[in-house]
């Protein structure tokens, strides 16, 4: 369904999707899965002979820009067709627009009606084979119409919320077909939504902060940027930026270089190098943070499995019977593709037994094994048995995002050890912004339908 832009966070079931067979006047018949409406009465020119039907759902306030189209299959005898939006309480024996909280565009004269029986000239009339679109912008509370893909202009302002798409027919032979997004629209609604989103982004970017919120806005921004650069170890950029903005860097350049190198090793899968560097520059780092050690070792296990890392096999002389209950030949003949040799497979098992399990046991003793960690641990050992781990349900463990996550975690721990903030203020701001956005969404603020924090972050 593509009637609403950026609907990822809107519950799809709440959108209008068909005409409501229980909310229509008796002169109408609904067919084609309640998408077609025909007037089956005799129909007279008098307004009181009209019949309307509403959609099954109202337009949610948080949907941003809602749009639907009506294809005039036949204008029937006189083409007294009204297309618009009405409230739940509007009567269904009149064309939309003639009652309170009812808005409509009528095909016989091209006039619009806004809760009144007297219309205003608006656009062209419409007839058989025309496609009339009706859009509601819940952010600006305006309603517009289109004809055959051409935007006709805004018709109504200050439109209330919780309105239903409505169609009204009045004379015999009138038949319409609705498109609530089941097919592509004639009008370029995506382009318009995209333009509107750009305008919103532009207005946000250009918005000036009130002077009392920050003491000196440019300095504050500089500090944010510098702290971000330092946190992620971009030492050259940080140094240049600090020089240009007349700031000092709390951490030494050598330290930043070390952290960046550690991060790079993690991203390339060389966990053994990471451990070496940490042991060298940050002694007892792992001992004082068991969870960190656990995660690092688990990642190392995965990297060995993938072939990106290796372990010191000196402690493993190959004579230990890794699989006491299995014949080594049968293992060699089995289809385990990642551990290319028996020795590699055995070394993995050795690593697991001698490196990981002791940590797990200690964590269990200290009741540090949470449900999440336990599940993670079980997945680590489960992926080991798949013939092709890259095509297994646990492939996510081998994804680069795991390395990034570990890299960020380790970086934060190192920074805390250096008595520096674990997270840059920019991250905290972003988290606040995300939470605020979610709160606004819950409160059905319309613009959250078109914009999220991601639109500002590349």
């Amino acid at each position: 369904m593509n009637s609403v832009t950026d609907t990822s966070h809107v519950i799809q079931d709440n959108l209008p999707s068909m005409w409501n067979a229980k909310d229509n006047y008796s002169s109408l018949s609904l067919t084609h899965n309640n998408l077609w409406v025909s007037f089956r009465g005799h129909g007279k020119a008098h307004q009181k002979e009209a019949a309307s039907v509403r959609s099954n759902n109202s337009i949610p306030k948080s949907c941003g820009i809602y749009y639907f189209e009506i294809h005039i299959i036949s204008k029937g005898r006189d083409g007294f067709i009204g297309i618009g939006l009405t409230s739940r309480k509007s009567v269904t024996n009149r064309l939309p627009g003639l009652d309170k909280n009812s808005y409509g565009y009528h095909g016989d004269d091209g006039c619009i009606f806004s809760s009144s029986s007297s219309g205003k000239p608006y656009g062209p009339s419409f007839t058989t084979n025309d496609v009339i679109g009706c859009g509601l912008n819940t952010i600006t509370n305006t309603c517009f119409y289109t004809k055959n893909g051409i935007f006709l202009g805004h018709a109504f302002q200050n439109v209330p919320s919780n309105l239903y798409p409505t169609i009204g027919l009045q004379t015999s032979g009138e038949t319409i077909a609705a498109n609530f997004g089941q097919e592509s629209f004639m009008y370029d609604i995506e382009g318009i939504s995209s333009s509107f989103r750009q305008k919103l982004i532009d207005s946000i970017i250009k918005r000036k902060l009130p002077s009392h919120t920050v003491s000196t806005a440019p300095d504050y921004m500089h500090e944010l940027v510098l702290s971000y650069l330092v946190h992620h170890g971009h030492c050259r950029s940080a140094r240049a930026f600090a020089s240009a903005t007349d700031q000092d860097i709390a951490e030494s350049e050598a330290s930043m270089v070390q952290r960046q190198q550690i991060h790079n090793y993690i991203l390339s899968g060389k966990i053994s190098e990471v451990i070496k560097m940490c042991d060298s520059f940050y002694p007892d780092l792992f001992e004082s943070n068991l969870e960190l050690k656990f995660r690092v070792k688990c990642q190392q296990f995965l990297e060995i499995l993938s072939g990106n890392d290796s372990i010191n096999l000196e402690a493993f002389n190959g004579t230990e019977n890794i699989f006491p209950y299995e014949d080594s030949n049968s293992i060699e003949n089995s289809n385990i593709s990642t551990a290319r040799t028996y020795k590699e497979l055995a070394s993995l098992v050795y690593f697991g037994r001698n490196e990981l399990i002791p940590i797990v046991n200690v964590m269990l003793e200290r009741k540090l094994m949470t449900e999440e960690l336990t599940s993670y641990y079980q997945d680590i050992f489960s992926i080991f048995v798949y013939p092709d781990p890259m095509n297994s349900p646990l492939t996510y463990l081998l994804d680069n995002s795991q390395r990034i996550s570990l890299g960020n975690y380790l970086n934060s721990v190192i920074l805390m050890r250096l008595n520096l903030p674990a997270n840059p203020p920019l991250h905290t701001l972003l988290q606040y912004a995300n939470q605020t956005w979610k709160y606004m969404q819950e409160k059905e603020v319309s613009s959250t339908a078109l914009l999220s924090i991601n639109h500002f972050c590349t």
Partner: protein
Amino acid sequence: MAMEIEPALSQASPTDPIDILASDDDASRISYVTELKHTIIGNKSRKIHSLSILPRLISVTEDPTISDPLLSECLVVLASYCYLPIEARTFFKYHDLPSIFLSKLGCQSSQRTIHHAIYALMSYCKNFPEHLDADIFYKEDNLATLVSHLDDVVKPSQQIAVILQITCTTHSQQLKLLNLGVIPKIASKLYQINAVRQPFLELLACLLNNNSEGSLIASQYRYSNGISIPEYLTEMIIQQVDPYIKLSASRCIVSIFLSQVCDTDINNSILKYKILPRLVALARPESDSTYNIQCEAVKIISIAIGRDLELQQVLAITDQFLNTLTDYLKAASELEADSREGEAMDVDVFVETPPELTPEKTALKSAIFYILSRFCSEDESLRRCVTDKKGYVMEQLVRGLVYENQSIKLSSLKCLLSLSRSVRQLRTSFVDYPVWRHVLKTADSSTQSMDVVIASYALLVNLVLEFSPVKEDLIKSDVITKFHAGIVSSNDELTELCYWGLMNSTFMCLATVRTAIKSLPSYPQFLFTHLSNPTSHGLTLRSLGILRNILSTDSEIEEFLQLEEESGLDIVFTVTQNNDMSYEVKEQALCVLANISSGSNVTKKKMCEDDKIRDYLKEIITDGPADLQFSVISIIANLVDKDHHGFVDRQAQLEGSGIRTALQRLSDPKYTNNKPLSELVKEALEGFTIDIS
């Protein structure tokens, strides 16, 4: 007492700027010029006060032995002088600064100096467009050097783009740039941020303007991601918020689409559904500061829709565009009404001088009139949308004729001309509003520009049509004399219009009109000029049209036949024998002959006695096109008319030439299936009363 020896007059003070520049001490020269630079940049009064140093500075810059650092500083100073106030700029027309700047773009200069030379060149181009000799920029070497710098770092490349955009004014210049591969260079720059790509968009718009070759190159170019320039420009127009970027991109893409080098159906669809709606949104009045944007958007839209009726109809309903345009005129009308409040009610609002507008409002009003002229050019329903119930539109159009500003006058005239193509409008709007009075005033080449004069005459041509109620008023106001003045002018377009106007005036000719025509100083020579020596198809046609309308009574015809050394009849007949003339012209000539043949016995006799005429009539009946046959048969029917004395002889003469036999053959269904023609032939044959045998 010792006499003080006065220092020799030739020994100037060492601090004199001119001598500092003339000295050999490069360090002091550089020091002086640098100090001068700091003094004058951003300070107009200091620039003016230091103008006396300019000639020396220019000669130093021209010196081929000048050191690079000094040259660099001199270029910056000269660039700064280009921003002098207008009244002090006359100095520059005596120096060929562009040539000097161009010569410094060579590789012997340092990068810094080259960039300063480019900046100086751009400054000159922006401030002295009227003194620019664009040809020196388009000499092979100079152009190649300029184009090579399009790949330079941001600022210089942008400045080159500005220079090329200002100097590229002709088709040949566009082609030279295209041959140097400018479009791919521009394309790469379009992916930059707005501040960088704006001048390149302007240059691209200039290159593509009325240039199908450029449009083809642009549409065939592909970026590394596979999209074309038109696709990227479309995306830019949709996604961008900056109105200036949207406008520049729109200009480019409208030029590409109008050149029809790409798929026309797709182009029309993109234009209709994606580009024009965005332009319409830009044309909406948001605030006073956006007049320029509105004006530019309206201009681009009017170019895009051209005479395409479908696009005009779509645009009229898009986002209430037509209402937006007319609402602006309504607001202008109400503003002017407010300013007249309290005055006497009998003040003619179309006589007094309209209020002065700012240049931006002037441009916008002119653009609105112009686009309304497009809307009103083809479709009656659109004309009604503009004029019905919107009296303020006509009011503003008429008041537009009173403005001093020529662009408003011209666009107002064009809009009125479009409206005058409608019979209904001629009978309503042009009666309700005193358009004709003001058009007579604007059709004055002594006070108005030629464009305004030509547009005025074009409108008068329509206003003197037979069904125009104001025709009589115009005839009484001596419009015939005005048309005659246009005929004898040296402007071919005006001449043809005035012939046309006389032709329309003489239709269903009143005695007053005939008298007025005959009293014209060059009557009847001006009618024969383009018949005896036809140079223009249109002029010959109109001259014949005038004759056809005038020659409607016996006395007129006889008088015509007796004019001049050469008979009027022979002059008209000669046109039919001219193989260079189209059938349309020959048909008109035959219609004149048909009128002549309806004259007195004397006239009929003269025609029948002429062997050449008889032979020609027979030739057309036997083997001529149907259009000419109709006229010929009318002539024959008039000649054989038995109500005029001498019909027997005339019929015998025609019979003797084989005309009757040819008619009989033509009446046979075997030889023609044209029913109206056959009917006419039968009627003509019935006129023959003499017995063949």
